């Protein structure tokens, strides 16, 4: 079926089977490979993007559900100041090890900070519980979210 998706502020027409998850449209059709496959069941968060500002697991979200809504992937995460603050905190604290899950982690962290500019540890637990990191970067992810929050507060 033909769809028009709005991805990272660009309008893109695609032609895919109706049940195709957004993940495979992003990766296979559009070449936006920053969004990762991890489980196919919405269990690991590696495929997280924002649809209409909300974090969404694209491996279980049909592309058709994103029709007409703004989609932001990791490739577009730096378009706003929260995204840039998160990316810069990630770099400053050397969060990534293999890096594979980090796109999903960053997208979840940005969504958290948008809703909750000064998250507590409990807020971070709740927002990040759906994102698995097998390398075990959780302590640095937590620290980086706090750091990004601080930086954004200072800049506000």
């Amino acid at each position, binding site marked *: 079926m033909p769809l028009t998706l709005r991805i990272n502020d660009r309008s893109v027409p695609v032609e*895919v*089977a109706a*049940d*195709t*998850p957004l993940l*495979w449209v992003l*990766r*296979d*059709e559009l*070449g*936006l*490979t*920053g*969004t*990762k*496959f*991890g*489980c*196919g*069941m919405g*269990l*690991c968060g*590696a495929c997280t993007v924002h649809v209409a500002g909300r974090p969404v697991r694209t491996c279980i979200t049909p592309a058709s559900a994103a029709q007409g809504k703004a989609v932001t*992937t*990791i*490739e577009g*995460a*730096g378009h706003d100041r929260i995204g840039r603050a998160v*990316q810069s905190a*990630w*770099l400053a604290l*050397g969060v*990534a*090890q*293999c*890096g*594979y*899950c*980090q*796109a999903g982690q*960053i997208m979840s962290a940005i969504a958290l900070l948008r809703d909750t500019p000064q998250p507590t*540890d409990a807020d*971070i*637990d*709740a927002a*990040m*519980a*759906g*994102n*698995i*990191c*097998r*390398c*075990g*970067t*959780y*302590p*640095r*992810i*937590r620290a980086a979210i706090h750091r990004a929050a601080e930086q954004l507060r200072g800049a506000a």
Partner: protein
Amino acid sequence: MSGLTRRAVLQGAAALGGLALCLRQSGRIVWASQPPIYGADADPGGVVDNPLVFVSIHPDDTVLITVHRPEMGQGIRTSLALVVADELEAQWPRVRVIQAPADETRYGSQDTDGSRSMRHFFEPMRRVGAAARMMLEGAAAAHWGVAVAEVVAERQQVLHRGTGQRLAYGELAEAAMRQPIPEPAQVRLKDPAQFRYIGKSSTRSADGADIVVGRAVYGIDTRLDGMLYAVVARPAVLGGKLAHCDAQAALAVPGVVRVVQIPSHPLPAQYFPLGGVAVLASNTWAAIKGREALQLQWDDGANRTYDSQRFETVLERAVRQPGKVVRDQGDAMTALQKGGKRLEAEYYLPFLAHASMEPPAATARIRDGRCEVWAPVQAPQATRDLVTSLLGMKEADVTVHVTLLGGAFGRKSLPDFAGEAALLSRAMQGRAVRVMWTREDDIRHDYYQAVALERLEAVLGPDGMPLAWLHRSASPTENATFEAGAEGEDQTEYGMGMINIPFRIPNIRLEIPRVPAYTRIGWFRSVYNIAHGFAIQSFLDELAHAAGRDPRAYRLELIGAPRRIDPRSLSDNWNYGESPVLYPLDTARLRAVIERATREAGWGRPMPKGRGLGLAATYSFMSYAAAVVEARVGADGAISIPRVDIAFDCGAQVNPDRIRAQLEGSCIMGLTLAMHGEITFKDGRVQQSNFNDFPVLRMPAAPREIRVHLQPASFEIPPGGVGEPGLPPIAPALCNAIFAATGRRLRRLPIGNPLSSRAS
């Protein structure tokens, strides 16, 4: 070992009907006529330290440094490159890292496992950088017509001291390449006091900036013109074969292009594809849907009755009778029968899956008689050898590009998935094909860390210290993946933390019973150290409590006075392939990490009810690690871990921040396997499938604080491993902490969270 010799070994192995020898983790083929060789020299592929292979400098002053070891999160692309850059006097912001393709003749050993990269290539990469620096100095001196002693390289320029003239590296590069390469003995290394990047924590990661914007390219991200996307239905039982395939419905799925059978390789599995039926499509989703539509029947073969629960009784029988004696000191069997307090315990570790976040994936294309592969592999040369053999090509016609690895942990040492891609590309007349494993494929068709049952017995003397120690370790050997009928751990397996216990016990007997394997066995981060460390470090805790002693003081007394032990005196003739002279077991360093971790953790501080501290300390991969876990156990059995203190000594430290990161990660992975990790088999089939039934630790359950305490570094001490040695102490430290908190002794992993009733 030179590349030529490696090839001879390979041909020898092939003549015997397999490619196994070149893959064996020990990496050592010992020839009777040669003196023993150690370290990287003993690795197939050996060492190359030619600066022209690893360094090139563009006229625009960009410094290209080739890293020949795959990057899987350990930071090696940054760490090896910064070693070269430091000795080269390059400016890190101008360095670009190039990933070497598979070619051990050109680059030396690329087999990235066993925590060996820095152990084996710190010194060679220092020589690479220093030799290139000397060639640049030589070129500048020639340009100015002055003696080379009058010039000095600093910060990517060569300075003539007398006149203050400077030439940038970019201006000198071409002439420098024509300078003679200094002989290794003439290479002037820096004084470590002059290091600018080595041993510092401020060096920007080679890949971090790409990762945070989604630009980093992993194996699963390869995209080529006209590429097809493939998923494969593999036999559920190891050794199973396809009996019948009806692909009609699969071919009717829009986007499905072709269904291709992959032949099953006869057992042993080695690193050949498992066989099965591949669905190739114009996108991943169509391939997945096509696979679901396949109508398949299988002949499950001889392993169809394998049941891991029943196998536990095989392991129990095995550890309750004598096995092959691998260390015998004094007369443990007699001493165990004499009077004194006697303890015995059995510890169980289940099969473990690696579950790297990037599942196996590889892409292949064949054009003009040449095959190119893009793959996230820890063993690039083994991948190239496999593809060469599967396609019947010449090695020179096979190129393996190494992508970033989205986690690996030992799984991607075995390149069966790259072989699938190569076979499928050939089936499609060379068209580019990318194979992706789903998570279910990954969990069900892994090369698992072997199940293990460890039995320990001890008798305590009047002072509470052990007079006798008997340890039997029953675990299928990884060798069974390569040699039909191999049974029981070999010296590289019991060499991981079982044989080399440095305890002052007069009577020690260590035995290896023979147990068979019915599954693919592989290497999981720290490998057999997991089971051995869990058992030994838990048993020490049990002995201490039986003796009414503090577990920390008890351990230190058992280890005894500081001394350097030749591993051969502990019947350890492997020593991770390292020289026993260069790498003795130094009990002072083991004591020191115990003292540091316990001090930092506030060992002995009063704990409220339901809270406890647990200690474990292990020596593996030439590094010393001690962990103190603080555990809190609720009335409902729910475990939380507020804090872990880890003290670590790996000798020379090249990239301290990445060492810390590896220890943090090892801690999380160790807690995952302690609490959750378990693969079981029924009717020959793996019963788990995804993160719902093979859970891994998530943010809320991770310790709030993981405090890593690096021992003071010294470049006088050769580097030890970093990627693996942080893992073995974690599970026993947690279980010891839970004992301290609750009085409940846990001898069976995983313990569950909340605590499982099966755990003890």
